[in-house]
């Protein structure tokens, strides 16, 4: 049994690598940061702070999409919501050490949920574009590609945390405490 959190073996049992290591997480964080800047740019346009938006391929496609009814269905423009989601991805990707699949399952699961559903919303927006408005938007597509790219790499870490939660359940210890990373449970259940 590990005496302190730092003695925990970083590679989950039955795995070949540690999904919480920095070289696994940094690329996702960088992608999310790029996505955040793209979404912020589109959001600034939707707030009319800037009056034109970069669109190299689809003519007035971006203007049609970014001014559509769906993009303003909520009180704040959808691109700003996207930027906030990306910010959540960046934060949830950075917080926690390299053993967080076991020491901080809640953060890993928040991260997984933030990346997964955000990816799904992006696809929905891509689907809405041509079907409803007969238009395409280059930067919206770029944002969708970024969201989709993050799903695969983020899910392995969530899998390691869920497997850990499963071992906690089998051990009879409190899953609630393990989820929040309470030290005595995290050290007790391997």
């Amino acid at each position, binding site marked *: 049994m590990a005496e302190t959190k730092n003695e925990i073996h970083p590679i989950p049992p039955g795995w070949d690598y540690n999904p919480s290591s920095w070289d696994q997480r940094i690329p996702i964080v960088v992608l999310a940061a790029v996505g955040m800047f793209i979404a912020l740019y589109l959001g600034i346009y939707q707030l009319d702070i800037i009056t034109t938006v970069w669109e190299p391929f689809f003519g007035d496609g971006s203007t049609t999409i970014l001014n559509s009814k769906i993009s303003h269905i909520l009180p704040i423009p959808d691109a700003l919501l996207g930027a906030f989601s990306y910010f959540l991805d960046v934060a949830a990707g950075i917080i926690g050490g390299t053993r967080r699949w076991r020491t901080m399952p809640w953060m890993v699961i928040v991260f997984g949920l933030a990346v997964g559903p955000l990816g799904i919303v992006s696809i929905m927006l891509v689907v809405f574009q041509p079907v409803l408005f007969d238009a395409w938007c280059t930067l919206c597509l770029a944002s969708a590609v970024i969201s989709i790219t993050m799903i695969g790499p983020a899910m392995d870490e969530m*899998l390691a945390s869920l497997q850990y939660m499963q071992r906690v359940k089998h051990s009879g210890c409190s899953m609630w405490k393990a989820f929040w990373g309470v030290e005595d449970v995290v050290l007790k259940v391997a």
Partner: protein
Amino acid sequence: MWAQIVNVVIGIWIMASPGILNYPTPAAADNNHIVGPLIVTFAFTAIWEATRTVGKWNIPLGLWLIIAPWILDFEDNTEIVGEMAAGIVVTALAMVKGKIEQRFGGGWSSLFSKHPEHKKALEKGK
């Protein structure tokens, strides 16, 4: 992995083809604009070994492309043949599992197992 990459390319083609080929049937264009991005998403996510299993979600989508021209009444023969051919290839490639070189404690299915692989690995001390 190559099978998933090919499916990503086919998915992009499905998504772009109504615009490039000027599909005469609106339902065909809408159908492709919905199914294309989904195929791309599932195949792209399946490139990574830990989420390879998501590639199988393209099997029902591929099968749908084979029957869609008849249900949605596509008018143009190129449209019908193209759609069905894409459906056949997507379905076949979605079944290719490819090499899994890394271990993931038994993967996603272990979460529903009473004796999951990651627990056994722990007991063996690996």
